[in-house]
């Protein structure tokens, strides 16, 4: 009985898992078969995946007791309602937040040395808040069975909230799915969907970007008119030039009045 309580209180990643295996094996020797199976199952999960094991600490206490004498089991079952339901329905959710190094923050100002320490994991809209260990693991303790929502708050990254179903019927089972894209997760490893860039990036000064802008085009056109037109005029045949000028004179200078609808009638 003592060892199963011990199980419940540590989720410190791999180092403790090894210890847990040892405890688990001693348990097999001490206790009956059913209990040993459950204990080692829990241990294996947290060893192999380390992430998605949902364990039921207090149920193991009762399981241990049940294993000792069937009589006690009966007693327990009959007295179950009198047990505080909070402790009977308490589960732990363990998971991991992984920020790939590929998504390096590069030159951005918020890439602080201990940035993992600024990540928060929130359950059900801030009802429970937990933090990450150096290896990215987190755990929520004493969570009732049901459907929960886990959100990760990390400056610079966009995380999808995760729907987590904690099953009351088969403890140790967890179902997780990203709510943004409805992708199921086989283990509770949360990765950012994308990086978030909070600032506009100043475009470096370049001639092309100037020329491409509407202003640049206008200026370009005006320059072309100012410098190329005289050249064109120069190249024209003087005879033709004179003819054109006379033509223009005969038509008259386009005045404002001719542009107005009324003026056109004159």
């Amino acid at each position, binding site marked *: 009985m003592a060892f199963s309580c011990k199980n419940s209180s540590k989720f410190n990643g791999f180092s403790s898992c090894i210890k847990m295996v040892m405890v688990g094996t001693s348990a097999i020797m001490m206790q009956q078969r059913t209990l040993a199976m459950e204990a080692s199952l829990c241990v294996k999960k947290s060893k192999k995946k380390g992430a998605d094991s949902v364990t039921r600490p207090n149920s193991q206490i009762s399981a241990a007791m049940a294993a000792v004498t069937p009589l006690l089991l009966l007693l327990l079952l009959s007295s179950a309602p009198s047990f505080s339901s909070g402790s009977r329905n308490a589960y732990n959710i363990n998971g991991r937040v992984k920020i790939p190094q590929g998504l390096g923050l590069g030159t951005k100002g918020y890439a602080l040395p201990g940035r993992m320490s600024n990540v928060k994991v929130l359950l059900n809209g801030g009802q429970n808040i937990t933090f990450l260990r150096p290896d990215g693991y987190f755990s929520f303790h004493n969570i009732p069975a049901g459907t929960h929502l886990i959100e990760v708050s990390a400056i610079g990254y966009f995380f999808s*909230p995760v729907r987590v179903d904690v099953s009351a019927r088969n403890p140790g089972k967890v179902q997780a799915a990203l709510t943004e894209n409805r992708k199921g997760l086989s283990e509770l490893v949360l990765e950012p969907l994308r990086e978030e860039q909070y600032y*506009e*990036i100043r475009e470096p000064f370049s001639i092309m970007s100037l020329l491409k802008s509407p202003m640049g085009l206008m200026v370009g056109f005006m320059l072309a008119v100012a410098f190329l037109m005289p050249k064109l005029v120069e190249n024209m045949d003087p005879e033709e030039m004179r003819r054109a000028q006379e033509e223009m004179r005969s038509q008259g200078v386009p005045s404002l009045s001719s542009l107005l609808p009324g003026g056109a009638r004159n």
Partner: protein
Amino acid sequence: MAIMSFIFVFFFFSSLQPILSLYEDQVGLMDWHQQYIGKVKQAVFHTHKTGRKRVVASTEQNIIATLDLRSGEIFWRHVLGPNDVVDGIDIALGKYVITLSSGGSILRAWNLPDGQMVWESSLHGPKHSKSLLLTTNLIIEKDNSLIVFSNGRLNAVSCIDGEVLWKKDFEEESLEVQQVIQPPGSDFIYVVGFAASSQFETYKINAKNGELLKHESTAFSDRFSGEVSLVSSETVAALDSTGSILLTISFHNGKISSQQIPVSNLLEDSPGLAVIIHSSVTGIFAIKTDAATIFIRVIGEGKLEVVEKTNHETVVSDALTISEGQQAFALVQHAGSNIHLTVKPAHDWDSNLLKESIKMDQQRGFVHKVFINNYIRTDRSHGFRALIVMEDHSLLLLQQGAIVWSREDGLASIIDVTTSELPVEKAGVSVAKVELNLFEWLKGHVLKLKGTLMLATPEDIAAIQYMRLKSSEKSKMTRDHNGFRKLLIALTRAGKLFALHTGDGRIVWSHLLQSLHKSESCRQPIGLNLHQWQVPHHHALDENPSVLVVGRCGPSSDALGVLSLVDSYTGKEFSSLRLVHSVAQVIPLPYTDSTEQRLHLLIDADKHAHLYPKTPEAIDIFQSEFANVYWYSVDDDNGIIKGYALKTKCSGNVADEFCFDSRELWSIVLPSESEKIITTATRKLNEAVHTQAKLIADQDVMYKYISSNLLFVATVAPKASGEIGSVTPEESWLVVYLIDTVTGRVLHRMTHHGSQGPVQAVLSENWVVYHYFNLRAHRYEMSVIEIYDQSRADNKDVWKLVVGNHNLTSPVSSYSRAEVITKSQSYFFTHSLKAIAVTLTVKGITSKQLLIGTIGDQVLALDKRFLDPRRSVNPTQAEREEGIIPLTDSLPIIPQSYITHSLRVEGLQSIITVAAKLESTTLVFAHGLDLFFTHYAPSRTYDSLTEDFSYALLLITIVALVAAIFVTWILSQRKELQDRWR
């Protein structure tokens, strides 16, 4: 030359290009951010090692933080969950901060330099109990260990990885463990407590393995009153439940012996009920009575001696071991405007290690807590520094008779915020004095230009940044043209009023309110809200504006109210009133008297209305509008919404002409078995609506239903009012109502099946946006309801307008039966919400954006166009031109539109928007534990030049153009001359 000038013109325009959001170098230009930690509950110093000296603090706002001991700056800080109350903190191994929280069930270790969590352990136990954390130097299985008592179980936990080394249950039902003691240098632990309140129990436990070595218990005739004070490692002092008999109990080697001495034997006068003050000084304990604090020394076997009796507020620190076997503690006493800090050795009351007198600002109130730390001076004597927590929650470090630094941590718990205008600039004061001379001004602008062209060297950039941030313009104490400079007046939970300058966030004045001060008649004063009492613009310009602070004496709604009037320029409390009635609601009326004092109606718990200010003039003004005053009340617990109007003068036995009886006009009773009110929202009173009509595609017009009496109510199934995931979608629903608060008419009702709260809602113009949780999709959703007035819809017929057969000029009244139509649409939204607000501009012309406080404590701006019920998957060409965005199932989150950019407003509570005088701009103030202020232009600053605008460029361009004109003129003249000569 011409080319040059063109290029200049061109640069000039390119600098006008609108910016979508913020560039990184613009941080701090418009915005400021302040970080706080709240009222410190416990502090531990870390000064042993060379390097940076720190203090680790836990606060009442569930924060753990480490501060720089030199400057008071925050090194790191973590905000724990709302239910994760910190029970104890300590430093272990010189590198880990250990915190015990959540009623002793979570033990965490944080890395001291950077705040990274190292390990976390969950501790369970058989029952609830007091939680105690004890760091020891014990080495068990090669690990340094912590001893934690929580939930009726004693645990030894390894410091290295948080593993539980051994545990021992104390399952005895009535046992209340009071202390866990480890006598220095020993390897056993005493667990001391009471069983059945009258039995004293000690357990001696082997610290190596948790084995019970000895258990003793003694029954006493009296019952104990909770707290015990540790006098030595084997003696405790306790009081009986009547508070009149002192017990000293020693349990040396497990043998319990006790002495009982009536308190009255020690004191000449009868002290009344005494309580023990928690302290850990060897040989001395303190009791506090109504009148005095008494320090008592234990001499030998149960002999007591009163060493000092002080009559004023005295605070004692915990004992500090300064050298081998020597302990010291600090005492802080008030004397007028000074505080006296005394450090005494524990064994000798009469000698002082340190005695300092420090002048203290009266506005900080009394000292609430003191923590001391020592250092070795160069002459090998002991120096002491003291960290004190004041009544206004501020934190100060005292050293060598002076205040080294202070932190205004009261600002971490703001209750309400209002704004006030600054004084108008006086004619005599010249602006030019502040400005630089022309050359420097131009030089600055040339630098800026270089910056925009990305030609600046790093030194230049630094100079530009310095220049921008130091701009004297933004922190002046006068009103500006654009209305950016204002005072933010904030009421904090400690009952202190702060005025912050919007330019740089500095505290202009602060005032500890007399009315919210603890006193005989008002034991638990709490501030409720702030209102603008007097805003002079036309008539009373020589008067200063003032704010009204409303509070009450106690948490229940029928506690008596208190009012204060505070001058918003100076912070002087010029009037303070204790009311004879309670305050349930405060209604600022839209009427002012001749000195521009706003009339306020205070509704008490018995639904009487009291008019303020109590002047005959006010009553005259009020009489004429008597019939037009309506209000409503929402009773969340019973699900009743009621509307009221005024009836007659109060009929009570006291003739009070400022008191009015109310009559109930209508009530809406929601079925309590199926609906529970969780949120209500109304329009802001000062919101301006520019146009009543909305032009839609194909030249059609829709009339907005704009009523300031609109109330949004959201209810959920009572089962679903708990946390997310506690109900199935089938048994939860969310019902929203739009109610007219004058007539009680339900304008719209809508049910969202399979949804639940929490609901955050904002109501503005003719629309409401609310956020809730959809259990079926298991995602958050945001919905919009827009409400339109159908009765005016037929006015678009031109012929009717010509003939005059239209109702556009008919008065808008709540009593006219409006035919309304509503449009609604829902979208998914990724994050949980903490707060929601809408931008507010002075005339309401600028398009609106929603300001969303996300669960990550950031503020996101979201264009209202994304929440337009007319969005469709394939909008027509006409609709596209109108600006309708094609429908998507979820709302986009654009990282650039976080107005808090890469900052967090930790513990975000609310977002306040204030209109600037410039139509395009809203001032946004977000507060929680942190404060954040910025200017925000929802449609960009279309009506003014941006900060980036380079006047130098403009000037150079003009000069260049003029020069070019001259040059070309001369050239053309010369050419003409040559032509003539030819």
